[in-house]
């Protein structure tokens, strides 16, 4: 059973529907106690970094997540904004994140309007190191991205995949029980489902 953390931002149904398609039960929860007892967690998210952080803190979810992730070592997958929240800091709202993974999120900035912001469309991964979560994923697979901010990791060993859009950015990271992906596996058809399956089978 996977618990999808609901902090009232973004369409959580798509994540739940994706798990259902690979026969994995998931539950959407906004209850800190459920976060503490969860076997596995997904931190989704679409929207504004500092607003998300504020909601997580004011609802008590942030404390529960810190406890679950750092003390109980519950496996957690951050998706898109969820991944960025796992880092130390974001330029979006100049706000602090959880800091579970050393790094920060910066905004794309291009001189030319040919490259649009957000990076919205399909792109591939350059796999940097083996991770359970990338099992059976190849550099030919395409994933669905929608983001204006991107992650840089302070420790290169955390980077498991990177992608290029104007500049090279971290498209997936891992630090112990903490996994993050910038793309949306729940919107990436078969390749994305493989990642969710890998996470569910950890």
């Amino acid at each position, binding site marked *: 059973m996977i618990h999808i953390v609901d902090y009232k*931002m973004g*369409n959580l*149904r*798509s994540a739940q*529907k*994706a798990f259902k*398609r690979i026969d994995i039960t998931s539950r959407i929860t906004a209850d800190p106690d459920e976060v503490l007892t969860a076997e596995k967690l997904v931190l989704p998210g*679409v*929207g*504004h970094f500092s607003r998300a952080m504020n909601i997580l803190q004011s609802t008590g979810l942030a404390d529960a997540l810190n406890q679950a992730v750092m003390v109980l070592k519950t496996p957690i997958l951050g998706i898109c904004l969820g991944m960025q929240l796992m880092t130390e800091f974001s330029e979006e709202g100049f706000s602090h994140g959880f800091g579970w993974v050393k790094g920060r999120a910066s905004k794309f900035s291009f001189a030319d*309007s*040919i*490259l*649009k*912001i*957000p*990076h*919205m*469309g*399909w*792109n*591939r991964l350059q796999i940097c190191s083996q991770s359970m979560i990338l099992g059976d994923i190849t550099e030919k697979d*395409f994933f*669905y991205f*929608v983001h204006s901010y991107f992650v840089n990791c302070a420790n290169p060993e955390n980077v498991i995949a990177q992608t290029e*859009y104007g500049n090279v950015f971290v498209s997936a990271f891992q630090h112990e029980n903490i996994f993050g992906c910038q793309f949306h596996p729940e*919107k990436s*058809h*078969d390749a994305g489902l493989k990642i969710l399956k890998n996470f569910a089978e950890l």
Partner: protein
Amino acid sequence: MFLPRIIPVLLLKGKGLVKTVRFKDPRYIGDPINAVRIFNDLKADELIFLDICASRENRVISVDLVTSIGDEAFMPFAVGGGISNLRQMESLFRAGAEKIIINTAAVKNPDLIQQAAEYFGSQSIVVCMDVKKTLWKENRVWILGGRKNTDIEPVDWAMKSADLGAGEIMVNSIDQDGMMAGYDFDLVRQVSDAVSIPVIACGGAGSLEDFKQGFEQGRAHALAAGSLFVYHGPRKAVLVNYPSKADISRLFDKTEI
């Protein structure tokens, strides 16, 4: 390697699926939910649903229908048709829509773009403009399902929409709609060059090659099509289709941005 999104546009007249030519002569194509199931199997990137009669009939795309679509669709989808306030948007998001498309209401009340973007986030608000050329070949934005000329210049409107917080601009050519003779590439390019947000090209795609040109020449980051995905062959037999990711990847293989 970046690949643009390829998006089927499904037109609704009430609860039935139709396809138009130059915004006229809606031909019944079938049942929208059935089409969603086929696009699921074909692994379409995204879907767009537009109720083409809603604005001028003063109603909103059916929440019941959007709920049924939301129950079935594996992919993100956007909905439009007569949406003019935040309350309607909220119920459509709750029904499972990922994005809201506004058109007539945005022209009548541009503040709606800003309110919607602030409330739901820019990434979920698409401003669609229907464009038609005048006798002097000047582009103008039309509203009410292509029934009324606003005399607004599309590039100006795109820039204003982007400034107000739109997340994407959808440029739909009334003249090219259903013709399957290619997008209005100049129009798409003009709009795309004027804004820093993604542009969805729509109206006129008749082949995969048009997608490539829409991306390379038009600089659109999403390519939408109606007829191409619901018709097959010169006699336009109804057959829902969609290219595979391998085909799309091959199509854009030599393209670098």
